[in-house]
């Protein structure tokens, strides 16, 4: 990855782009399913963010290293053959890391694992992970891919944190499990249910687009 002048882009840029200008949730709009399903509470969002970041990091590093190695070892014709089956290769690598997270979380954080349930194995079909493998890790070095994965993971976690804060505070009257309003507050239950996720996310997207339009819109939030 290099900037417009052909110089290698700075490390900070690789890292920061995932958080704002190419935020996986609000800008690229990938990986909606876990975002909406898990953002019921801040605790769940943090757990899911950590799990997805781990998978992203592992798969990005391994795929970048593998592709660099294959590029050195194989002849150009062989490499072209291998590139035809790259997607199954990515998927197996990703699935291995998801299995690791699944087993680790089941062993060390069983309560969180029970709450996230189905969505931990589902990281394997999360478009962010495969998307970064194909769009970034396959054609960049290991260090750049590591930073990219960390930035994307953090951007994903922050976006979920934003959604889950709104949903938990308004929908349950709590912040990270602690009540924030007095006992007189009756929670707006709909926000913790399924429709609340879609409504909150839709309104947030509209808000960001509005801010972008009114601030001149240079492609970043």
């Amino acid at each position, binding site marked *: 990855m290099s900037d417009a002048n052909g110089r290698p882009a700075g490390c900070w840029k690789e890292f920061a782009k995932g958080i704002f200008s190419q935020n996986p949730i609000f800008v690229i709009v990938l990986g909606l399913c876990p975002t909406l399903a898990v953002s019921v509470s801040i605790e769940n969002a943090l757990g899911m963010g950590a799990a997805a970041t781990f998978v992203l990091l592992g798969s990005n590093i391994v795929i970048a290293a593998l592709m660099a190695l294959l590029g050195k070892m194989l002849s150009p014709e062989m490499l072209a053959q291998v590139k035809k089956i790259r997607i*199954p290769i990515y998927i197996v690598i990703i699935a291995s890391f998801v299995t690791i997270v699944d087993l680790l979380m089941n062993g060390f954080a069983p309560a969180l694992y029970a709450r996230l349930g189905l969505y931990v194995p589902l990281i394997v079909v999360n478009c962010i992970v495969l998307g970064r493998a194909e769009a970034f890790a396959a054609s960049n070095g290991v260090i750049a891919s590591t930073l990219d994965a960390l930035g994307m993971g953090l951007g994903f976690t922050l976006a979920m944190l934003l959604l889950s804060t709104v949903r938990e505070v308004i929908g349950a009257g709590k912040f990270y499990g602690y009540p924030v309003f007095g006992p007189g507050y009756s929670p707006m239950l709909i926000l913790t249910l399924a429709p609340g996720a*879609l409504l909150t996310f839709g309104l947030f997207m509209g808000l960001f687009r509005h801010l972008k339009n009114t601030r001149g819109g240079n492609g970043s939030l």
Partner: protein
Amino acid sequence: MDLFELFSIFIGVSLVHNFIFCQFLGLCPYIGVTERTSSAVGMGMAVIFVMTLTSAITWAVYEWVLVPCGITYLYIIAFILVIAAFVQLVEMFLQKSVPALYRALGIYLPLITTNCAVFGVVTLNKIELFGTTNSLLKCIVQGFGGGAGFMLAMLIMAGIRERLEMADVPEALKGMPIALITAGLTAIAFLGFSGLSI
């Protein structure tokens, strides 16, 4: 065999726990393909077809390969490979033998490999149904019901979106945001089905 149990699985997975409105599985095609009713139908049919059959195949792989070998913890890798291989196979088979169906489903099939709803239904099968009596039949019903619920949601959304094009939507909400808000409002209607739990 208990027909009532199968029926309650079907209602549960297609309406009460609808994949799109209650579990958020398969949102990407839901937003991406629902701009026209015809493409929503094509995608829905492809999903029903693939979900029903992969439910049966993953059952067989789990019970006959993973369990005897004692490697059930590898189910994530096994299932995703089964889905990817199966979708590829169906695509090649349809192209050669049933070209009419291939033309109808063709462009939607490759999209299905990364559809979380398909992986979601086989994982749900594994969590909820494997090991119960008649589990194969239940898995097939769950797969078919999940696909049917998915198609229902796609059709509703496509119908609404075709009319939304004529509506006067605020500039910032055009496209994705209004689609999500519409989906949210439809999901409130689907909450009504939770009284149907049998």
